[in-house]
């Protein structure tokens, strides 16, 4: 690359409200076509929109989580265009007074923190879906998605590589998930991005001519489309040609993009204030309630885990994968008093089990207090590691109390020294070959005898105690023989 790449993203995210943004229809994915519709979201004559307050809360919550300034006075606007997926032939969106503006999100690039500016976040309604049926004459429209609340997050052109674009998208996704604003299911289209990209000579202030790549619906597609587009523009410039300002469509299967329309064909959306809705005036109390509902965000948590809890950076990344796991970790660590053990248990047991399960449930199956108390039992030597796993298995997916269960399952470590000595003596007596091996200097024999003794004690003995008794007896035996 002989030029600097400049990228800005427009990220569309569907909000996780129960109902649509202007009517009471359910906001859910995957229902039979046109079964989640009503006269309002179908834009039938005489119907009026009523703004969903939860959608406003979510938009503002996303804005606060991304360090935006929140407008005390906002309004909705009409964006006019004809297309069969838009019932009213205008989209209710926000033009000059969005809910949020001037924020930022930090990303980690090669160990360095880089700040990406957010220009604005506004609320709007999603459109329906056109299904081009190859067997039918023409196209079919499904309006279930029509009126689903969306936020559009517009970044500043602050990214300098396709990788930064992907990292930014990841960071935004993480924030939206942590705040519960969106489920960010990219395969269902609930998070998608447009990539604006231009090139300029290194050191030049002025931006080059940009292109806009529409509707990229995976993190990989964002990065790949940006790489491909940067190469395409570089080739054009190298060949002495100029870049056309245009909108392009990315074909993820072919790995290339196609021109949709140029600047000359750009639409005039004729924005004007939506007269069917009143302006939204946000007072301090409303804002404070939203602010209070924002959990600690993944970036801050990762720093805390590494710096205050001594967790390796890689592990901290895994532990903050979802807010459910991060909350589980923090609670378990606090309950058992040992973050490192909590981390090991979660990565070794919980994440493994969740991976093995079908589906995409985010529920770890246990809360941090109970997980922490199991870890605590092991840490304090009250049960063995093996018993701990057995206990965890029994508790998962139930609301059973591990402290009660540990007695019922009779897992507590046996500390009666007489019983341990009896077991060790019996094992030594029954395994003369092992004794012989030991005497012949084969270290493995000790392990075998340990296992036998633990088995005899039903796994409930303290392995340390068994080991020291065994070693003492062997020494005795040795000495006695000589």
């Amino acid at each position: 690359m002989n030029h600097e790449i400049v990228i800005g993203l427009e990220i569309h995210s569907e909000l996780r409200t129960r109902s649509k943004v202007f009517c009471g229809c359910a906001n859910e994915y995957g229902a039979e076509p046109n079964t989640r519709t009503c006269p309002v979201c179908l834009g039938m004559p005489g119907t009026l929109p009523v703004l969903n307050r939860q959608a406003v809360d979510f938009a503002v919550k996303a804005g606060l989580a991304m360090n935006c300034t929140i407008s005390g006075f906002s309004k909705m606007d009409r964006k006019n265009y004809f297309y069969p997926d838009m019932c009213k032939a205008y989209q209710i969106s926000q033009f000059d007074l969005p809910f949020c503006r001037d924020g930022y999100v930090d990303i980690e690039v090669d160990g360095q923190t880089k700040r990406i500016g957010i220009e604005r976040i506004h609320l709007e309604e999603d459109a329906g879906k056109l299904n081009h049926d190859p067997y039918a004459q023409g196209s079919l429209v499904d309006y279930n998605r029509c009126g689903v609340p969306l936020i559009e997050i517009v970044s500043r052109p602050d990214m300098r590589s396709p990788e930064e674009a992907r990292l930014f998208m990841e960071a935004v996704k993480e924030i939206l998930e942590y705040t519960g604003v969106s489920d960010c299911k990219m395969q269902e289209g609930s998070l998608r991005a447009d990539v604006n990209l231009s090139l300029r000579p290194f050191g030049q202030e002025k931006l080059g001519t940009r292109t806009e790549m529409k509707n990229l619906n995976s993190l990989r597609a964002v990065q790949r489309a940006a790489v491909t587009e940067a190469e395409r523009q570089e080739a054009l410039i190298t060949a002495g040609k100029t870049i056309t300002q245009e909108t392009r469509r990315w074909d993820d299967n072919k790995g290339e993009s196609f021109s949709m329309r140029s600047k000359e064909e750009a639409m005039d959306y004729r924005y004007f204030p939506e007269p069917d809705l009143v302006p939204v005036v946000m007072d301090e109390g409303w804002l404070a309630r939203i602010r209070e509902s924002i959990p600690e965000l993944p970036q801050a948590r990762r720093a805390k885990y590494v710096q205050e809890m001594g967790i390796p950076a890689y592990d901290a990344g895994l532990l903050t994968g979802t807010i459910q796991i991060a909350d589980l970790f923090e609670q378990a660590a606090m309950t058992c008093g040992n973050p490192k053990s909590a981390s090991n248990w979660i990565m070794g047991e919980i994440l493994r089990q969740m991976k093995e399960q079908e589906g995409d449930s985010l529920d770890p199956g246990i809360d941090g207090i109970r997980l922490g108390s199991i870890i605590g039992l092991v840490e304090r030597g009250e049960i063995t590691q093996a018993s701990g796993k057995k206990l965890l298995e029994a508790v998962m997916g139930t609301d059973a109390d591990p402290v009660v269960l540990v007695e019922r399952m009779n897992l507590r470590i046996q500390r009666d020294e007489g019983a341990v000595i009896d077991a060790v003596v019996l094992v030594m007596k029954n395994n003369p070959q092992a004794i012989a091996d030991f005497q012949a200097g084969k270290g493995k024999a000790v392990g075998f005898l340990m296992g036998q003794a633990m088995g005899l004690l039903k796994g409930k003995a303290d392995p340390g105690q068994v080991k020291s008794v065994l070693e003492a007896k062997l020494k005795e035996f040795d000495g006695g023989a000589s």
Partner: protein
Amino acid sequence: MKELHELPVHELAGLLADRKIGAREVAQAHLDRIALLQQDVNCYISITPEVALGQADAAQKRMDGGDAGPLTGIPMAFKDNMCTKGVQTSCASRMLEGFVPPYNATVVSTLQKAGTVMLGKLNMDEFAMGSTNENSYFGPVRNPWNLERVSGGSSGGSAAAVAAGLAPFALGSDTGGSIRLPASFCGVVGMKPTYGAVSRFGLVAFASSLDQIGPLASNVRDCAWVLDAIMGHDPMDSTSAPVKHESCTAELDAGVKGMSFGLAREYFGEGLNGDIRKAVMKAVQVLEAQGAVSGECSVPAAEFGISAYYLLSSAEASANLARYDGIRFGHRSADATDMKELYRLTRGEGFGREVKTRILLGTYALSSGYHDALYVKALKVRRMIHDDFIRAFETHDILVSPVSPTTAFRLGEKTADPLQMYLGDVYTVAVNLAGLPALVVPCGLDSDGMPIGVQLIGKPFSEKKLLQAGQAIEQALGRFVSPMAAGTGSTANPVGQCGKTEEEVRA
């Protein structure tokens, strides 16, 4: 003994309550009369005898069970831009011919709950765009005072139905004068309430920030009764005001003693017909005679009202009417071969000339490059007009003005010159731009015997006071009854006659 169609709502209600007549009898009398006169007046687009008789029987049952309100059993009709579940709602447009909504407008369900009886759906200018009711796909409405004259618009069907005795009351909608102008032309009482006083849910939108539903009736008291029923907050309409409205009927006869009436200079200027000026001044004298005071005032920005109104209403209309694309409901062209052609042909065939003109005007006003010079500037004018009115209300309770520069003119007389037609709205549009309530009450006849109305403009949510003043005028001048309603229904003499002689009115 007067015939049933000559009785005002409040008298019909008394007879119904006293079991002197039955609800079915009242409904049937009106249906019979509609069957006789609809062809002359053309005020109905749909007549719904089955709905009417069904609702009349239900109303009777309620009255017999002691569960009746003031409007139970009273026949009425809706302008055809208010959605009625199961009954065609056409907006007088080919585009919505055959469109049957699966929902009721809030006013429709409110009145249904009050027990009214729907006679049918009333003619109007297509999508409420027009001042004469000549822009209807279903033909023009004729003025019951003179069938050669226009009814006024866009709620021409509503005004003519009341004037002809074809509905005791009707609902109309008013975006720039659409209740008040036909009320004035047809000699009935009409009220455009404060913006937000009556729910717009289910009213097919023309210009959302200006549209307002209101009543038309033969007298002021009936208007007050209907307003008490339909005003109120509706959670389905975000622009409906969350206020508790005062009863309009309770102190209707309180009089105007001590009230101050303002005469805005701008409303009595050049171009105002002499008969109208005299009739309006007569109404002012009547108010003064009852203890009110009057004085001159000014609404300077009002002279820009027409321009601002036609830009803003057309801009909103261009978006509101974009949904009629042939994809989901209404007319769809049979000849289209691709998507763009489907839009083009459907809209080309479905909309009438005036509607297309306004869509083009509005689209232009919002287009990039013109948006600031046209749309934004019109918004500023709107704000100025609002502020002018508020200033005028610092010294006056109510402003008095004519409704229109002329009385009802001949059908076809002004259709050739749309700009001339738009100027007819000069006294009405500013009220919508400012969101104010305004009442029109008949106050005289011109030299041709056509009715003249006076417009009373009030502060936001002062409907009660406006009605008190209207009542004072009506009490003094009497009601004006069209020859069609006064007679037995004969249309032999198309020239208007009044309940009073010309001399009495002009005195």
